[in-house]
């Protein structure tokens, strides 16, 4: 997978993850172009299209488009399943996920994505496994952030 984009019907980018080194201005150009192409697609059309030298796999979930660019030898059908798995993870984490969740908790969305995929490849094929890891990491973050009393700070309590 070269990159994954999440964007709304109005063309607002909600998440972008790039798995190959790309210059900032090239990223901007590609995102703009690709969003236009995908947003022009009609509802009954196929989830796959060819764009530049890449294969694009996209799926719309409510108001968000999940869009991945994969290489020639990648399996488009399993990519659809990867997208679906990511949506399921978000859904379980946020409890019936909606676009606003992704907007206001964008860093959480990234943390989940980074626990699910690395270098564009799946890390853990078990949904439970990914969610458990995120839960533990969140716990660690909470412990870290919780205010400590003066005595605790001094190691006396």
């Amino acid at each position, binding site marked *: 997978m070269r990159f994954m984009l999440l964007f709304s019907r109005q063309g607002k*980018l*909600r*998440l*972008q993850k790039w*798995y190959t*080194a*790309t*210059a*900032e201005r090239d990223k*901007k150009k590609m995102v703009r172009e690709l969003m236009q192409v995908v947003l022009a697609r009609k509802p*009954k*059309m*196929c*989830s*796959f*299209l*060819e764009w530049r030298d890449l294969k694009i796999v996209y799926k719309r979930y409510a108001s968000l488009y999940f869009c991945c660019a994969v290489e020639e*030898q990648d*399996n*488009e*059908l*399993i990519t*659809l*399943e*990867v997208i679906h*798995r990511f949506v399921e993870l978000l859904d379980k984490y946020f409890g019936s996920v909606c676009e606003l969740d992704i*907007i*206001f908790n*964008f*860093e959480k969305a*990234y*943390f989940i994505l*980074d*626990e699910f995929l*690395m*270098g564009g*490849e*799946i*890390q*853990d*094929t*078990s*949904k*439970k*496994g990914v969610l458990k*890891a995120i839960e*533990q*990491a969140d716990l*660690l*973050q909470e412990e*870290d*952030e919780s205010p400590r009393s003066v005595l605790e700070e001094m190691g006396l309590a």
Partner: protein
Amino acid sequence: CPENEMIRVIRSARTQGEERGVIQRECAAIRAQFRQADSGGRSHNLAKLLYVHMLGYPAHFGQMECVRMIASPRYSEKRIGYLGAMMLLDEKQDASLLITNSIKNDLSHSSQYIQSLALCTLACMGSAEMCRDLAPEIERLLKASNSYIKKKAALCAVHIVRKIPELGELFTPSAHSLLSDKNHGVLHGAVVLITELCERNPGNLDEFRKAVPELVQIMKGLVTSGYSPEHNVAGISDPFLQVRVLRLLRILGRNNDEASDAMNDLLAQVATNTDSSKTAGSAVLYETVLTIMDIKSESGLRVLAVNILGRFLLNNDRNIRYISMTSLQKIVQTDHTAVQRHRGTIVDCLKDQDASVKRRALELSLALVSAANIRSMMKELLRFLSTCPPELRSHATSGIFNAAERYAPSQRWHIDTILHVLITAGGDVRDETVPNLIQLISVASELHCYTVHKLYRALISDISQQSLVQVACWCIGEYGDLLLKGDCDEIEPMQVTEDDVLDVLETILQSHMSSPTSRGFALTAIMKLSTRITNNIDRIRSVVSIYGSCIDVELQQRAVEYNALFKKYDHMRYLIMSSHTIILGIPMSKSTGFKLHSVVEGWSPQDILSVIMYKHTYTQSNFVVICVVPTILHSRYG
């Protein structure tokens, strides 16, 4: 949470200008916070900046803050710091080198979640230098550690190998042993790593072919295992892992009989037993088909694979139909007969609503045309042409012409097909095909009358399609006499007067829709008619004289030469503008005396050369010159 407040404020901005104002204020505040050495809300601050960056605003002033946060002992700060690094830094920036040390330390941290952050970031934006530096660490993690870290180390190794293929050597030994792990994440990572190692360095293939039996076992386990809730997707046990294993098997079995044999049974089993009612199963079947077709499989297995693709063509899910056609396209040359069996279904897909599916169906249909099916296929292709989306039309017309030329069952059929395409889609026929079409028409001599009549009738109702215009003009110029005679065997008669013909040609000359090439064709046709009509030579003379001062330089030059033909060289006009073949001969001595079709008395060799040049340049005719000249002249003029 402070960043939520900022997000709310930004979203409530009513104009782009207002938003920019808010962003500017927020960025100023963030910058100020960055400068303060020890502020409590550092992670929130950076998170705000990352949001701003996501909206498209510049955020490079946050790069150093990311570096600082990554070095913090607190998990919450590391977490957002590493995220920031992945979003704001790329390998080209110097700042990215500064985090190498932090990553190195974090790779051996006691908390696996911190190790995880380091691995993820390295795999995301690690430069070649960083990779070289940290590769030994990754290799160590591949061997030691728990499955949580092992699976991440494997994918990190994949990134390293992509950046510096030679470092693959470092990971090759451990990669193989990872295949005996029970954890699916580790297995998946191992398979991806081995795939990468084989693709980057074919020298590794022999080594990893030894793993084929293990891979086959893994697949068997997945396919025959009972329901496993943790890995089940729509009735398939870990389709993600299955797909990757199948892909690796493909690479290992390619061009290798032994490896291909070892996986034959497994592939048959997967192909037969996998339920394709949902996408997960179809994904596995798809990968299986790709593998079967790419390795050295038995013919029975290949047929099985093509049949799966055929079944896919009938699937309700459009995605699966599309995938099927993509795969069929890849094998249509090598397994032509097998794919031909599904021709009917493929042709049906020409009617699909989706343009991508249509495009695939068109490519495949063209590839499946043969001498045996040309008539029925052409019917379908012409039907398709009438409802074809604009972006596919010129490809379709080219494909149709090629197919017609290769397999035309008769000349009449061929001409009819050409005419049909020109008349219904002439605007999409590529300019380069026009000379070829003219050539084909000129060779079909019994059909000249029919052809010129049909083209003339198409022309009088529509002069906007340039290729149609060009071919029609050429035919009218060349066979105008047949057009004017009125009757033709295969068409209802229609009275065409000299004025009618000149009217349409002049309309083309004057129309703003006509391209320069088309206007050239029209003018030449008018000129040629001067030798085929009787009553309107003056009209032709005046048209030609008007265009002598036309703005278009090429048209002007043409008209000037034609003018000259009328004025100074009228004796040559007939010869130049009339039919194909001119036979010129300078009479030999009386002793040889043989009959010639046209004898030009008193012409110099220069005259003859001029005629030939003119004819070549200005009439777009194909012609043959048979020249009989006395030997003396031959030796002098060659």
